[in-house]
Every structure is written in C-alpha cells, then in structure tokens.
C-alpha cells in the first residue's frame, strides 16, 4: 500500500466525490433534482457530474419534489439507483407522501421482492443566515418513519463514507447534510478504502470521564468546542457523534453513558418531539442504574426557525451546553 498525501477538502467536495465515484463504479447510479445538472446544484454539490456522465445520469428535473421522488421510485423499480437532491430541507415536504407511503414501505409491501435503493440527499439545518424555509431541521419526521435509514455526517470523511454507503445500500437512505458544514475543511484521503463507513455506527469523537455529549451533524463542532471550554470548569466531556439516527447505535451510546454516568443530548432541531426525546428515553431505559443525573437535552427552541438576524439565539451554543452540563447534579456525586 502506497502512502497517499492527505489533501484538505470541504464537506461539499467530499459529497461530490462520493457521487462521482459511485457513478463511475456503477452505471445504475443516477442523480436527479432541481438544478443538479448544468448548475451543479445551488450548493455546487453535484458540480461536474452532468459534464462527466451526461445529462441522462445527472438530470435537471422539472420543479416538483413529489415528482422527483416519485419518478425515482419508478427508476428504482426498474433497477436503477437514484440519488435525489432536495434543494433545501423545507422543500422536501412536498415529497412527504411519496417518501412515507412508498419509499419507506415498498420493500416491506412486496415481501422484499422490490427493494428501493434510493438515496435522498437533504441539505438541512440552520446557521447560514438563510431566510425562512431554508434552515429547517427535519430529522424527527424521517426518524419516525419505519423503513428509512437516516444518516448525517459531521466530518468531511464521514460525508464521503456515509454517502457512498447510502448509495450502496439496497434500502432507502435519507442523507441529512448539515448545510453549515458544507464549507468545513479537513484533511482527508478519498483513496483510503476505510472511507466507506457502514451505516448504523456511532463514534466517540472525544473521550472523557465526566459526562457524555450525544450529538450529530451540525452540532458536533459546537459540542467539541464546548468540551474544550468545559475543561476550564473541571469537566472532562466525552462526545459521541451518532452519524446514523436510524439504525441507532445503542451500544456505543450506552457504553459511553455507563462509563460517564451523565449525558446531555445536543441538537439544533426543536426539542419537543425532536430526536433528543428518543435518544434521552433510550438512554434512560438502558442506563438507568448508571445515571447520576437525568439525561438533559439542549435543543433548538420549540419555535419556527427564526429569521437570520435572530438565529444565533435559537441555535444551541457552547454556553447553553455548558449550562446544561452544569445542571447534571454534580453536588450529588461525591
């Protein structure tokens, strides 16, 4: 094995590369969506694919999300592997019926005779100063839909690995791409075969003994920053990056919480009815006797996503995370 120099790349570039490699490796992989062809997508994530593989492989569709996902279902029925781009989180809602009633259920409906290997890419979340409908965190909707896999990368390498794994999966996978990490950079070697992550594995991003921050996607960098800041308060925080919301990696999460005895779930999606409820409930069920304090949640408020000038007050930041850590009943410890 030759040593390959690691090259810095953005998450957007890693996602592009994942599609390119998948298209080159498998002629049944097709990309479709609004503006994905000539323009290369409004985030340029499909940049160059139409030029390299032609318009039939990377197709600008009419402006109709149910139509995009619905035709993708038909294409998958005929043996293709469609990769669909929804332009923004809130613009995936028109496709909700196709997603819930067909994409998620067709394998089961046909007793496995007709799996639908469809990847649905959804740029999601806030923090980019977008106007209304451009910053929704919609993961709760997808998590509550049996039949879907739901993954969300937080690092450049995972963006590549999870998207490759999603496209390779014989089941539908919703890939939630954190918009505000699109331009985050990292050194990363796409030639490394290990770059293709299996779906369903969480990872400990930072080891610590005091408490566990359970997070994913756009909130990972915030949690890592909080963990650094927590050292000043004498807390040594562990940070778990879920990467896959469905299936959920109980093993990694619970192993961490059993070790630390305390946990805070962090995400920017609204708290009520959000992913954190499921996560905190699971941890509560499975780690009850290891818990020194209730599992707390730091989440976006239960409000429609705010306008750009107010979003910083909504998004969980370092202070709000540290505040929650501070409420983990430390006095009760010793």
């Amino acid at each position, binding site marked *: 094995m030759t040593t390959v120099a690691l090259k810095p790349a953005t998450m957007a570039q890693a996602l592009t590369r994942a599609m390119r490699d998948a298209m080159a490796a498998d002629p049944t992989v*097709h990309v479709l969506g609004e503006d994905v062809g000539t323009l290369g997508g409004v985030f340029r994530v499909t940049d160059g694919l139409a030029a390299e593989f*032609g*318009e*039939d492989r990377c*197709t600008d*569709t*009419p402006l*109709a999300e*149910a*139509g995009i*996902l*619905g*035709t*993708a*279902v*038909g*294409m*998958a*029925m*005929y*043996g*293709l592997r*469609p990769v669909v781009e929804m332009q923004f989180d809130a613009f995936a809602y*028109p496709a909700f*019926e*196709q997603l819930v*009633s*067909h994409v998620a*259920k*067709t*394998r*089961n*409906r*046909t*007793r*496995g*005779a*007709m*799996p639908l290997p469809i990847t649905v890419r959804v740029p999601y979340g806030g923090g980019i100063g977008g106007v209304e409908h451009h910053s929704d965190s919609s993961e709760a909707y997808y998590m509550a839909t*049996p*039949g879907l*896999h739901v993954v969300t990368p937080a690092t450049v390498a995972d963006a590549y690995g999870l998207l490759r794994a999603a496209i390779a*999966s*014989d*089941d539908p996978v919703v890939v939630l791409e954190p918009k505000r990490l699109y331009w985050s950079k990292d050194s990363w070697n796409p030639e490394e075969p290990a770059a293709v992550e299996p779906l*369903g594995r969480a990872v400990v991003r930072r080891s610590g003994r005091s408490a566990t921050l359970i997070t994913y996607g756009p909130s990972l960098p915030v949690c890592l920053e909080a963990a650094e800041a927590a050292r000043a308060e004498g807390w040594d925080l562990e940070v778990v990056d879920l990467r896959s919301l*469905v*299936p*959920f*990696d*109980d*093993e990694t999460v619970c192993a961490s919480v059993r070790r630390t005895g305390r946990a805070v779930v962090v995400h920017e999606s609204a708290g009520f009815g959000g992913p954190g409820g499921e996560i905190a409930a699971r941890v509560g069920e499975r780690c009850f006797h290891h818990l020194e304090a209730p599992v707390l949640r730091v989440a976006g408020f239960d409000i429609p996503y705010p306008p750009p000038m107010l979003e910083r007050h909504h998004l969980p930041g370092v202070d709000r995370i540290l505040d929650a850590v501070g409420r983990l009943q430390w006095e009760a410890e010793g």
Partner: protein
Amino acid sequence: MTVLEQRGAYHPSPPPAWRPRTDPAPLLPDAEPHRVLGTDAARGADPALMRRLYGELVRGRRYNAQATALTKQGRLAVYPSSTGQEACEVAAALVLEDRDWLFPSYRDTLAAVARGLDPVQALTLLRGDWHTGYDPREHRVAPLSTPLATQLPHAVGLAHAARLKGDDVVALALVGDGGTSEGDFHEALNFAAVWQAPVVFLVQNNGFAISVPLAKQTAAPSLAHKAVGYGMPGRLVDGNDALAVHEVLADAVRRAREGGGPTLVEAVTYRLDAHTNADDATRYRAADEVEAWRAHDPITLLEQELTARSLLDEAGIEAARADAEAMAADLRARMNEDPPLDPMDLFAHVYAEPTPQLREQREQLRAELAAEREGA
C-alpha cells in the same frame, strides 16, 4: 447524444419571435368519445381480439361478483368493484406486451388478473394477509396503489429508466377521475412529457370519486383536455366500448414504444356498484342514473356486435359463462382457506437487514407468541 439531449437545446426568443413549443391542435381530444362498437369501424376489427375481449369481460364481471360476495363472507377485508368498468380493465391488460408494465390503482385487481396474475395473489391486499401478494417484477405489475395518483410518477420513472437502458418497454398507468385532481397526477404527466417517457395514462372516468361527482371534481371540458397543458395528446374514448378502448390504448402504446412520448386517455365509463362493499351509493346517486348506464353495459355492447356478426352464438356465450364460473369456483374455494400467516414476517422485510432495534422487537414477539402457545 443522450436520451434527454434529444429534446433539443433551449433557444429562447424574445416575444417578437415567440412561437408555441408544440402545436396544440393535434393534442386536443376529439369532441366525441371514440367509439367502434355499433359503428362501421367495428367491421374491420379482428375477430380473435373481439372474442378474447369478450371472454375476459365475462370473466371479469364474474370475478367482480365473486370478490364482492367474498367480502360478505368475511373473506376479503374490502373490495372496490370494477363492475361496469370491465372494458377498461381488460383492454388495459390485453394491450400490453409481456415486457411492458402495468401500474394499477386499488380498484384495478381485474386488470392485473386479466394480465395473467393469479386472482388470489392479486387480492392479497384486500384479503388482508399482506400488502402485495405477488412479485411485481415477475409479472411487471406494480403493487396496487392505494394513495391516489401516487403510482403515476412511478410509471413515468420506470418508463424513463427503461428508455435510458435502451429497453423497448412501455408503462401503462391507471387512475380514476378523482385521482386527476391530485398534485401527483400533474407532476407525473409533466415529467412524462418533458422526458418524453414511454408511458400511457388511462383515466377511468367512472363519474364518481366515492360520493363526489365529476362536476365537483373538475370544470374541464373533459379530463382528456388536461393533456394539452403538458404537451401530450389527449384522447377521449367510450370506456364501455372494449374495442374502442383497446384501439385507443394500442395507438398510444405504439406511439410510446416508437419514441413518440406519453398519451393521456380518458375513458368515459361508470361504476355500477358502490365505491366498495362498505359504501352505500344510494346516499349520493339515484337509481335511474345507474339504470341508464346499465343500458350501456360493456358486455352487452360487445356481445351484440359479436352476435350480429355471427362471431358468437348461444354456445359461445355459454362457454364463456362456464369458463367464468370455473374461475369463480376456484377462487371461492381457495379464498375460503385461511391464508398461511407468520407474525414474524412483520420484521422480515422492513430492511434488507433488520436493525438492532427490530431484532429486539422480533425476539419480544417471538417470546410473546411462545407464551401464548403455552397458555393455550
């Protein structure tokens, strides 16, 4: 040149040089629904096809009656009958080649059966032992679609995929008059036209969406007129004239196969039975309306033509009935047996590999069932 590039580059021109993208005239449906039976055109029709259609219509009518009877015996959870619409169902099935695909709605088990599916398999959804009783790929019949019009983009996507692969495959999708109001109808037809996908849309306008009559569903001159807005031809046909439906669909299928793109066909027909066995149609329509349509029965229409041309005699009619009876008896017998059920199937097909969570739940149910068996 790729398939999609064939549609030609976009050359926008300022209004001074504006011209329509497509000539609308050939897209407009005729003023009257196309008819063959009872007209001179019927004389040119293929006797073998007519006999085949006749046999299937008689079987179809019997199939509808049998399935409805099975609901009364608790052998089907529900049955949406296509009695009165058999000409559409049967023509849709017969017009397709083996390699083509059929996209039925929940009302179209008969089309699936006429295409060759085992009726017991076709009825699985309505019997309630599973959602789909057949392998769609084996029969090229998509699962019956319950959410209205959602199957239409599937048909477009499949037809498009086949064309991309260079396969000579046409998709035919069925939808009701009510279904044309759904956004998915619109999106599917638009995608089909833009992509010039080899797909045929057959709207069975049976006058009602459950209780809602056509006048509350649309103000269009006809449903076939919707085609113009997508740039595809719209065709209007007497949906109780099996020969006419077959002819119009055959034209559309041929056109699609030759790369001419999609067609929208509206077949004007009538649902003689209630919406389903659970529905009470007397709440929203008068008996004389139903009677008026009975006088335009698809079986009678074809039978008259066949007997007038001496292509069918009493014996032939008898034979068709006997064949239908045999099918019904077999169906009855097999539906009267309880289907095999395995509760573990609940977890088997959600994903290729069950998630750790599903594995846990599977074990929970397994334990419960074991306890139940012990208790019993």
